[in-house]
């Protein structure tokens, strides 16, 4: 539905050319929610603006719904943009218009009659639950309500594609979830294709089908969301996942942590339960089999799509000769094991 081919974007600056996007290739399938995650400055904003040509790529092709936007005249481009809805971090509602008139704007632009506008807007007000706010002005609305107005406005021209530019970044976590839920509903009911950019892993986790990681203007990883969490390919991906799941060592342990094994110490392990291993009773199994004491310091299991994935930090105590076989056993069960360090036995963990 959206195809980006070899997109490059350069900005001329006083100190030479800055490359914001480097050979981006993305294909978003119809009815899919595709998320692009990246830190600030990674080029996310440029990328999403290249899709409806708010920014013109320096080179490369943008194809939306079978139409190559980069080859269109400005009049045809305007017509094509009407089929692409867009929502923004700061909502971008007109303060001079009330909710109804804000949603009506894209329809006024194409010369709809009052009756046609009313017929189009009423179901949208219902969908976004804004009926009672119809005559309110943006200054009277909360952030979540403003974004719902913006969504209704983006949907007014019956687009096939919706672009979301950090749409939940200015909202609190609870409102974020409600907006993401609304986006999912819209996708399901209107069979819309959604491309969103975000810097929050939670957004990817709760509503995307596929995800791409953007770093320094390059798309370094692209995957299905379930796969992405269970088989992260790059370090950046792992860091993003780690940042979204709590797994730090308690300070009392961290300050005694030794890098190398010494006499009278025991290891601290970080276990990644991926590929469906999170639902197996592996911990109690090694405890019994190798006669080890296992102390769970941190644990987190997340359910993303149909996958369960967990990260656990444990202290292993017992016969030192049995620790290596235990680790080996874990690895055989497809648990990723990372030795974080060693802690002296006399430290109370």
């Amino acid at each position, binding site marked *: 539905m959206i195809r980006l081919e070899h997109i490059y974007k350069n900005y001329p600056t006083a100190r030479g050319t800055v490359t914001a996007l480097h050979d981006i290739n993305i294909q978003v399938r119809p009815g899919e929610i595709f998320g692009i995650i990246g830190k600030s400055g990674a080029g996310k904003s440029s990328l999403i603006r290249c899709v409806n040509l708010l920014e013109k790529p320096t080179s490369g092709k943008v194809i939306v719904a079978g139409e190559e936007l980069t080859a269109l005249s400005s009049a045809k481009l305007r017509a094509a943009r009407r089929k692409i809805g867009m929502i923004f971090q700061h909502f971008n509602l007109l303060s001079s*218009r009330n909710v109804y008139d804000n949603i009506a704007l894209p329809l006024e632009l194409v010369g709809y009659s009052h009756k046609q506008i009313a017929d189009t807007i009423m179901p949208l007000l219902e969908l976004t639950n804004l009926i009672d706010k119809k005559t309110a002005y943006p*200054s009277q609305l909360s952030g979540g309500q403003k974004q719902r107005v913006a969504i209704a406005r983006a949907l007014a021209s019956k687009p096939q594609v919706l672009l979301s530019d950090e749409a939940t970044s200015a909202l609190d976590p609870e409102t974020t979830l409600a907006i993401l839920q609304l986006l999912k509903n819209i996708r399901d009911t209107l069979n819309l294709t959604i491309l969103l950019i975000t810097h929050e892993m939670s957004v990817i986790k709760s509503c995307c089908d596929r995800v791409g990681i953007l770093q320094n203007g390059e798309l370094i990883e692209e995957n299905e969301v379930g796969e992405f969490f269970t088989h992260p390919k790059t370090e950046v991906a792992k860091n993003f996942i780690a940042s979204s799941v709590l797994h730090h060592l308690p300070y009392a342990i961290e300050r005694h942590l030794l890098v190398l094994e010494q006499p009278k110490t025991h290891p601290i392990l970080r276990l990644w339960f991926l590929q469906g291993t999170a639902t197996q009773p592996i911990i109690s199994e090694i405890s019994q089999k190798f006669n080890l004491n296992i102390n769970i310091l941190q644990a987190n299991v997340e359910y993303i799509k149909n996958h369960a994935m967990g990260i656990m930090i444990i202290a292993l105590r017992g016969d030192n000769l049995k620790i290596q076989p235990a680790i080996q056993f874990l690895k055989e069960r497809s648990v990723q094991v990372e030795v974080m360090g060693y802690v002296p036995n006399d430290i109370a963990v």
Partner: protein
Amino acid sequence: MFQMTLLFKATLETMYMVFVSGVIATLVGLPWGIVLFTSRKGNILAHPLLYQVLAAIVNVTRSIPFIILMIAVIPFTRVIVGSSIGTNAAIVPLSLCAMPFIARVVENALLEVDKGLVEAATAMGATAWQIVCKVFIPEALPGIINGLTLTVVSLIGYSAMAGAVGGGGLGDLAIRYGYQRFDTRVMLMTIVVMIVLVQLMQWAGDKLAKWCSHSKDSIYG
């Protein structure tokens, strides 16, 4: 009683001059300001040369003191009104003086509009003209009204100056009766009427700006 009749007539003349020159100046200044704004570098109809020419005209005309401008345009005034004396003749320099002022004021009001709104409208497929009419002007309206109020208040002051060259109105009255004939009563009355006029205009302008502003953080409402 005679004085009251004079005062009433002069007030009407002043209001007539300010109203007509205000309308003429707005008709020219508003589009001028819009073109000035849209032709700015990086804006929707960027045209650096046009911008520089228009901005230069604004700066040049605004540097000329009104009393000089009034005399300098006398030949032009004759062509337009057929005379260089009287209320109608005063309207010509008053309009000329207010046009570039309004252009700047409108440009500044438009500059306050959030660029994100332009982005949103562009993404909806709006043309440059639609963006000006449906986004910029309505969003900048409270600022524009505020600027027009400022212009009208200045025009009341300038129209009094026009009295010095026989333009009629309150300034004329103050000079001929109050100053040249040492009639302090007339002088004070004209000043009071001027103050009332300015207050009234400012109050009406503020009300109007507040009425059409719906933004919470607006300085107008």
